């Protein structure tokens, strides 16, 4: 019935078209092949998050382990957990904090280090990003209180709105900076106790703090994920998939969506993905039909690789892409160390290493 009502409303007021229109990649988001052509530092299935520790070492979460990433791309296991690590952050005091889905290991490198599994009176469920707060303590993005992190796609198609951002003080006292978000992914500390967070299913960055939530960067052409401070001010924003009109349409089609979730394997859903093109049972869109053996890079992206450099003023400056048909899709983490820029493509299971200077000069000209 609500289906009918919304259809009637859209018929009368034409809001449906608006729902289905998505921003094009233009201006600072003009496509390039910087990510696709980037040198591969290392490759391993299950790579999830990156962090540069206070001593300058690069660590990566990979499956149930934390690994140290050497400059030569060799991965050394430094910690192992009973389940997958879903987030990683470096604290100023040298410790590493690791998200374990429904818990956080506060000193991840120490066996049996302290853990928290409840914050602000609510159990953690899908911790997917952690950031160190300037005054000590942590900022935690808890994506959804219903679906575990691995089932983010369910949360999208169920139109989940249970994400929250938690500020955890150095004294261990925690409070919600924001709750009821349409998925919370990346989080970044800001001045005066506020935080910048990605509200992924609404394709926007929001500024949260003191219970208030205000859009900071709206109408992103993809699904924003984790963020990392950049040296020259501003930050790197990862966008793990690009939006397509078909997905927006399926989100409006409740009947089809419910049946699809009930009867079709999740990897074959009409939904954004971290990687694509591996199985012919994945959905195919008209623009993705190969012509003369070539898949067009402007075809509707089921998966996409995108990192956006956003300035201090919250205006995107430039971006790095891996386009349709490429491999380096599903970018969920970035780390910067001096001139080195590490990009983690979860879709390909690779860490890429680029030069910040070369990239910005190459793209900005």
């Amino acid at each position, binding site marked *: 019935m609500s289906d009918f009502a919304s259809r009637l409303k859209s018929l009368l007021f034409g809001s*449906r*078209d608006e729902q*289905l229109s998505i921003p094009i990649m233009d201006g600072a988001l003009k496509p390039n092949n910087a990510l696709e052509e980037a040198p591969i530092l290392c490759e391993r299935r299950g790579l999830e998050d990156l962090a540069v520790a206070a001593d300058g070492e690069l660590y990566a979460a990979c499956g149930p382990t934390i690994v140290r990433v050497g400059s030569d791309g060799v991965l050394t296991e430094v910690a192992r957990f009973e389940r997958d690590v879903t987030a990683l952050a470096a604290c100023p005091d040298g410790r590493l904090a690791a998200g374990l889905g429904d818990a956080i290991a506060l000193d991840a490198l120490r066996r049996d280090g302290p853990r928290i599994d409840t914050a602000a009176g609510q159990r953690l469920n899908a911790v997917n990003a952690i950031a160190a707060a300037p005054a000590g303590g942590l900022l935690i993005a808890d994506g959804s209180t219903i679906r575990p992190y691995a089932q983010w796609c369910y949360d999208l198609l169920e139109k989940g709105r249970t994400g929250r951002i938690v500020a955890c003080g150095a004294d261990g006292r925690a409070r919600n900076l924001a709750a009821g978000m349409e998925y919370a992914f990346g989080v970044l500390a800001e001045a005066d106790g506020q935080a910048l967070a990605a509200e992924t299913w609404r394709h926007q960055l929001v500024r949260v703090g003191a219970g208030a939530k205000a859009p900071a960067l709206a109408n992103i052409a993809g699904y924003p994920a984790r963020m990392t401070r950049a040296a020259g001010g501003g930050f790197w924003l990862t966008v793990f998939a690009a939006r*397509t*009109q*078909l997905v927006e*349409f399926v989100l409006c*089609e409740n*009947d*089809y969506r419910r*049946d*699809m979730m009930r*009867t*079709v*394997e999740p990897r*074959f*859903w*009409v939904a954004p993905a971290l990687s694509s093109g591996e199985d*012919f*049972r*994945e*959905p*195919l*869109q*008209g*623009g*993705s*039909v*190969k*012509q*003369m*053996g070539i*898949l067009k890079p402007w*075809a*509707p992206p089921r998966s996409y690789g995108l990192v956006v450099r956003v300035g201090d003023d919250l205006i995107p400056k430039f971006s790095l892409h891996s386009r349709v048909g490429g491999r380096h899709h599903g970018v969920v983490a970035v780390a910067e160390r001096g001139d080195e820029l590490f990009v983690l493509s979860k879709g390909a299971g690779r860490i890429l290493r680029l030069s910040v200077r070369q990239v910005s000069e190459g793209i900005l000209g």
Partner: protein
Amino acid sequence: MFETLTKYRYKLWPDKVFGELLQKRWMENSVTVIVLVLTVLFFTQRINNFTSLANVSDTLREASELGFVVLGMSMVLIVGGIDLSVGSMFGLCNLIALYCVHVLALPIPVAIILTLLAGAALGAVNGLLVGYMRMRAFLTTMVTLILYKAVFDLLGYRWSVAISSVVPDSDAWDFIGSGSPLGVPTVTWVFAIIAVCGHVFITRLRSGWHVMAVGGNRRSSYNLGLKVNRVIASSYCVSGLFTAISAVFYAARLASPGADTGKGMEIIVLTSAILGGIRLGGGKGSVAKAVLGTTIVFLISNGLLRLAAPAGEGRIILAGILLLAATIDIRWAKNRHKAVEEFYVSPSYLALPPSPPTDLDSGSPYAVNDKLRKVEIIGLGMVESPEDVILDEEDNLYCGSRHGEIIRFFAPDHKRMEVYAHIGGQPLGLAFDGHKNLYACVGGMGLYRVTPERVVEKVTDETNRSMFSVVDDSRLRLADDLDIAPDGRIFFSEATIRYEMHEWPTDALEGRGNGRIICYDPRTKKTTTVLRDLVFPNGIALASDRQSIIFAQSWACCVKRYWFDGPKKGDVETVIDSLPGYPDNINRASDGNYWLALLGMRSPSFDLAMRKPGFRRRMSKQLPGDEWLFPNINTGCVVKINENGEILDALWDLGGQNHPMITSMREHRGYLYIGGISNNRIGRYKLENADPNFVSSSIYHE
């Protein structure tokens, strides 16, 4: 439960008929007819004797008078002008007729001729100014409206007393005014005759076509050599003449030189014409439309009068109708093609059986492999879109291209090529007959033949029209694949009768039985449809009993067999009911089995969408084609089947690096040659244990 409802809803309710009806030209008139019926119903309910004989007779008399003026106005509108002066002309002609009959006591025929001449002359002034002097129709006729009205007032002031004081004693004049031969008023008889003549003139005569042409596009007509000025001028002249005819009947009926005669008439006339569906701006209109519009407007104004509505109210209602009709006219003209598009695509319910597994370790006969990865490439970049390939006895390789040609690669190495024949449309399925004629199904054109002397001949491009189809489906739109029976009969599939070749995705989206299998008999040179309502029938191959064909239905993912001769003649049996992909061409293998190409693979999300017609319809309307959910045609394979539907072998190239897509394959002397409609190459695959002397094209013709 809900799905069963959906199934029957789409089975029983003919969605596609609406879209097809909308394409018909007469559809627009039918809307007007419905309005007419509603109007009549409304007033019969409200007014007691609205449809009584006397009332109908009265109504007819007045309506016919109005009809003449509307006819004249329609002529002007069709040419692309407008005549606002009809009211004044009407008044003036009425006065002239009365003056001639009452005061001058001229013989009735002379009086009538004088009045008609006067009307034609008044119209001619408009025609001269608009047609030859190139003045604006609206402004010019408004000026003449005022001018004629002034003359009418002057003459009326001078003549009306004289007119009123005499009552003419003429049976002829009375007959014209109030006679009713056979119960129908005189004026209606005359109107009917003139309307029929007008209809014949507009639709059947050269000068009528000129009128339509000038209205449709003035510049093109001029470039074509039509006398545009003359056509325009004469339309105004005709308008004046018809107004005068109307005025004669009016004068004979009422004998009143009233000062208000014809006042505001142009509004009623314009409303009638536009409500009938005659386009403001020209190029579209007919006598039927004029008659319909007149009837409606007259019934409304007459009905309102009978309901004792104040005169002002009636005017307001008519003005409202005019506004509405003009708006609809403009919006419709602008958006008609969009509306047709909206309604034309009508997805149906198509539930496919579960897809057999294709996983590497599933043990399924379809399990994926990399056998085709080592396929040799022929003619890379030299050919585009070879849907089908075929080889002759001398090992030369033939294929179609999207440039409308049949390409020949020379034996033995197929490195050199030439254009064997230029057909003009894209050749799809190919077959040789016993006399080395190469038959080709050509998309958008039909069945063609290239003789050994390389002469291109049309074999057939139409079949018998279906009994109950709304649109004419006799033309072949997408002939796809063929095979030749031992007696020379050619059986070929037409994938869809609703879409062109490049619109195949839309047909896939519909998933309805839009296709058919057709037989061409060279002995009688007749083409007949043998099977209809098939879901994208594609590949066709003659079966081993020589009495049946095996054919594939792409979107239905099945293979069937049809007997055209023998004891089972007319039967259709299923060979394979559920394939993991969309079958395309079928051809014989040297061991008596069949090669079947799968042009694409099923995906669960698309299969689900096929069970949700509403979802697909909304998708087709709200998303651009590039964003639609498609059947996956980026990956395909070749399978070997037998007549019992068993899968004997599957050849895959999973990454599609070497040979991206497959629509056909042909076995020839130990090799399998592979074509693909979106490829720029032909593949060649060495078969193990295949007959090294097998030539597919000669198997049934020796």
